């Protein structure tokens, strides 16, 4: 039994991405008890991942986000940090010029 090859193909078999010949070759491994067990636990692992559900988004979090967006929207100009630096320089320059 070539376990290395078995492991190499296991994901593609599960995702139905093997061509017919490779699929047949892979399925021959099921005669081996170890491969069968290994495949069952591998498949169950993926199924468990599919079933992971996270908690609902806290309502408060959604509300906070909307408030922040509304606040940003009401600002006439919300510069990036780098731009802000440039803007400050520009202010300094104009101040110097007026002096």
């Amino acid at each position: 039994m070539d376990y290395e090859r078995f492991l190499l193909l296991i994901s593609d078999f599960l995702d139905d991405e093997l061509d017919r010949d490779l699929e047949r070759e892979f399925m021959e491994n099921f005669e081996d008890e170890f491969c069968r067990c290994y495949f069952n636990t591998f498949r169950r692992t993926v199924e468990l991942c599919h079933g992971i559900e996270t908690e609902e988004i806290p309502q408060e979090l959604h509300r906070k986000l909307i408030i922040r967006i509304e606040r940003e929207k009401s600002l006439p100009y919300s510069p990036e940090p780098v731009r802000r630096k440039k803007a400050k320089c520009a202010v300094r320059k104009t101040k110097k010029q007026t002096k």
Partner: protein
Amino acid sequence: MKEHDKQLVKKAQEGDARAFEHLIKKHEGKIYKLLLGMSGNKASTEDLFQETFLAAWRKIKTFRGDSDFSTWLYRIAFNNVLMKRRGKKKISTVSIDEPILIHGKEINRDFSEDWSKSPAATLENDELKYRISRSIKAMPEKYRKVLILRDVEEMDNEEVTKILNISLASVKSRLHRARLYLRNNLSRYFRGQ
């Protein structure tokens, strides 16, 4: 891009915050789930969640619609995770680059117990749920991203290649390694380790 998203994006680009709120409502569940999977901690997730949508709002005018809005949003979310990690103490992750099971042509038979039909192999088992989340968190980021997108969020390979901007071969090989690693960890759990 779906027609409804297109219209909402167009309005949001014109400064319509209500249209953007509709986009948030549509995508927030998946983004929250992704960020929780990536950070594994509620407080960081909440920060990242807000930063992701705020960044999207600030950059919405630059979105050209070449990809789905959700793909664009996922990229922003991943970038935020990356930015947050930068400068922080390196999180210790396990190496899953080395072969886990095979020594030459021999396979480690310690892993052979079939726990797949065990009544404990369910997400109602809080201990197992914790083990899964801890194992995912311990994976190097490049594997974790792919596993979360493919097996937790159940996206197809094509979507994942677009979001992560990596080849199909990379998606497949990273997913494969991540699954093997996770399965082995769960096997250890069922062996009481």
